[in-house]
């Protein structure tokens, strides 16, 4: 068996969608169905070129939300892989906060909003999901995909929330600290989640890169919202 096909070398390339219209307007999105902005399309095209020139991939998955699926379509075309969507990879459900700006939420939901903001991962913002609930949904989904593709390199297009909670899981970091990680539009985070299962050393998974945006050099890297 070659190095690349050892199950412990299974790699997930976790990619955040390109800039959406809501990102551009500074709105919380959650499960909202906002399409990519023109900049988001340019980012997705850059990402597709970059991935094609860099590496061979075996499978492509995406969240079923429009901004992720549109980004994944660029990769599907560039790489010639079938695209499988999985609703478990969706962003955090922000409930009533979806479609509203940071400032609007601060005004309307003052009771739910501490000032200055203090992050509590057990809080259900806007009546949606908590970040603990998101982690309980995303970790089994990504582990299942990794096991199904043991020894392969798999592209996963999803969202800032799912990527952060999965990285926190692999790193052994508490969710309360997840905002110290920046995940930019089309940023790539590359992980080996199965080392702990198959490696004789018994060591858990590794994070090989966090938020690689080399393909966006000289293109605008928008500040992230959610």
């Amino acid at each position, binding site marked *: 068996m070659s190095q690349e096909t050892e199950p412990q070398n299974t790699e997930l390339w976790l990619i955040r969608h390109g800039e959406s219209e809501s990102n551009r307007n500074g709105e919380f999105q959650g499960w909202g169905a906002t399409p990519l902005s023109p900049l988001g399309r340019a980012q997705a095209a850059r990402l597709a070129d970059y991935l094609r020139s860099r590496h061979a991939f075996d499978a492509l998955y995406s969240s079923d939300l429009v901004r992720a699926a549109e980004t994944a379509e660029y990769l599907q075309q560039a790489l010639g892989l079938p695209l499988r969507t999985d609703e478990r990879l969706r962003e955090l459900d922000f409930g009533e906060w979806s479609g509203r700006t940071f400032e609007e939420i601060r005004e309307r939901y003052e009771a739910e909003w501490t000032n200055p903001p203090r992050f509590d991962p057990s809080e259900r913002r806007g009546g949606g999901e908590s970040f603990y609930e998101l982690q309980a949904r995303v970790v089994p989904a990504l582990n299942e995909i990794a096991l199904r593709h043991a020894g392969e390199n798999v592209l996963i297009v999803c969202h800032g929330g799912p990527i952060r909670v999965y990285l926190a899981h692999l790193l*052994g970091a508490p969710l309360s600290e997840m905002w110290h990680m920046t995940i930019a539009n089309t940023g790539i985070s590359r992980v080996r989640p199965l080392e702990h299962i198959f490696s004789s050393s018994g060591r858990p998974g590794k*994070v090989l890169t966090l*938020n690689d945006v080399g393909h966006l050099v000289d293109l605008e890297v928008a500040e992230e919202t959610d």
Partner: protein
Amino acid sequence: MQRSQTGTDALATTELWLIRHAESIGNRDGWYQGQDDPPLTPRGHQEARRLAARLRGQLLSCEEALQKAPGVVLYCSDLVRAMETAQYVAHALDLPFYEDERLRELDLGRWEGLTSAEIAERYPEEWRVYCETFDPTFPRGGGESYAEAQQRIVPAIEEIARRHAGDTVLLLFHGGVMRTYLAHVLGLPLEHTWRLPLRNTAISRVRPFASSRYNEISPPGLVLAVNDAAHLEQL
């Protein structure tokens, strides 16, 4: 090239580019280096050239395109493998570099110069305890523990960053201490730092005084990227 701004806004935009040295003889031959002082290998020199070319392209083209680029400054550990790497970067960017002994790698005491097999043979009890516990307060080889190294490196990096508020600060140093700094910013327990492997010449970027607007209360620090080694493709 230094165009420092003033005030807290400038502090928040200060960006650290944490860069691990290129491949050294100890890396190649698989022995623990710590503060032992081997030079780069031929491959290490190649990696350092790639790094320097990349930084030149990235930092100088940004400056021309944006007309608002912050100043760039370069610091490095005073160990040979870091200084040799820094010389390539300094030349490519036409910058001086400042040596700082606080940026040295962890002191590994009597483990320095030995491979893991040799340590296991000579110091079996020490080796067993460390491998079973990954205890971050354990001083490997009677040198420095990860916890002690973190207490040394965090204030040193923050002091350098404050001195260059608003600038891009390149810090060329070592993987072990760099991971303890990243763990500090990420809120990661020190037991888990080896889950963030750092390649020779890989770049990790941090804004040490910036905060996410979702969490203005917790201590500041935003990690922008970890272990970006795109310049080593096809080497």
